[in-house]
């Protein structure tokens, strides 16, 4: 078995000012209903996925995000 390729996905810390980013993410959801929050997350996933573009990287991200079984 070969190790799964991760494309160019980085799972090392890559965000400057992590606390600031996190606060911004939560602020975006503030005051939204559960439904609207869910819709926002979906739009965000699509926008970021398009930005990444590379299918291998996106696939690796999907794998990394799946719940552990």
């Amino acid at each position, binding site marked *: 078995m070969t190790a799964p390729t991760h494309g160019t996905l980085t799972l090392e810390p890559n965000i400057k000012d992590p606390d600031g980013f996190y606060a911004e993410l939560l602020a975006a959801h503030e005051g939204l209903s559960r439904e609207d929050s869910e819709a926002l997350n979906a739009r965000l*996933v699509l*926008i970021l996925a398009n930005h990444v573009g590379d299918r291998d990287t996106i696939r690796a991200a999907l794998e990394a995000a799946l719940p552990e079984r």
Partner: protein
Amino acid sequence: MTKIFETPLYPYQRSADQDAETPVRHPVVVLGAGPVGLAAAIDLAQADIPVVVLDENDKVSWGSRAICFAKRPLEILDRLGCGDEMVDKGVVWNLGKVFFDERKVYDFNLLPEDGHKRPAFINLQQYYLEQYLVDRVRALQADGKAIELRGGNKVTAVKPDDTSVRLTVETPDGPYLMDADWLIACDGAGSPTRTMLGLDFQGRVFEDNFLIADVVMKADFPTERWFWFDPPFNKGQSALLHKQPDDVWRIDLQLGWDIDREAEKDPEKIAPKLKAMLGEEADYEFEWVSIYTFQCRRMEKFRHGRVVFAGDAAHQVSPFGARGANSGFQDTDNLIWKLKLVIDGTAPDTLLDSYDDERVYAADENILNSSRSTDFITPKSHASRVFRDAVLDLAEHHAFARPLVNSGRLSLPAIYDGSPLNGADATGLPARARPGAPASDAPIGGDWLIDRLGGGFQLVTIDAQAPDTLDVDGIPVTRLALSAKDDPSGALAERYLGSAPSAVYLMRPDQHVAARWHAFDADAVAAAVKTATAQA
């Protein structure tokens, strides 16, 4: 005025077979005079193989059925002699609009590639298509071709053995028997042949109902395809409006799964939705109203000895993407030249197994595309609806999301990558013309490349030398000599040469590429013909 679908086009007539002492034997019997059966029969007759078509009915198809016909099937219909009728009568369109809730989220132009004889597709009622095919059968008969169309002939038993297939045929005058060397079963999605032979038909049923209505109305709507996701007049569901000739409009309304089908068909119940969709003042009349559920499924194999399945009998798809009749034409296009070589004894019977290889592959591609469209249009889970709606919301403002909107992907022909019939490939030539691909059309000196291809094996030379004719153990190969200069627009060079100075293509009788080289080599061509006819 009586409509074409009310007129018997091939009424029952007693045939001599019914009075024969012993069952009469025919080289090929085609079961079913739908679009696919008729195409098979015309192709056979053009190849001088006698053929009898049996259908229990005697008219064109009933109800709302196919309306979109794509470029590749139009090219096939050209070869069968009905392309002009189709395109002259059909509606050509390139513009589409997508609505979500109450907003138009975007519009698109298909921008079909230049330099093709035929448009990306046309809209035309299936009954016209069938009428043109029957007209073509009549023209072939007038030319003395052995092609017979027997209406009122219902096949009730199919018994194949190693050398032939025995059919029991029910008629108004009682039953008779006939034998066929080969049976092509084009008897539709409910294929009685499939059932009689105990064969499988596996796949997926989409738990949804669609009201499909064809309405006659004088309206100034533009010639565009309008698709609504979750519109106010059909909350939580989808809708489609598409133009056909003769002021007929196709309307699809998704209804959901738990409905009372009879109640939904009530014109009183439909009227408010149509008024909301078409405007209060819309003045329409129904041509057809039907409710369909859709499925995607196929037989495991399409060839079973001397019985070969084609069209809906072999595979069925949901109509989003217009792949039913379109792919059925590609089945017979693939099958008939192979059957001809086998009947003529110039290729082994195993050549027909490649029909399975190639058309099962194509069916899977169609099923995949049509399932994906159906899943987008009718999301099957909460998450899939959330993402679907997110895509539609984003599509209104951002170009990136528009390619994700899937209200049906238009039918494109399969490229038979990995087919056992594919021969040599040459590096550096364009990928779109690789072995297994259907020919791309191009203008050539006042003519169209596609009109010069098909019917037999051909060697297309572009700025390359080759003999005008070859014979590979009884299989003739004729040369079509071209030069990049034949097409000042550059499309020919772009589609077949890329940056190479010359190329030689071996084309199959169905206009697909068999093999290609930079220059002619007699042994290489002979080897490729052998490979393409299952003799390697």
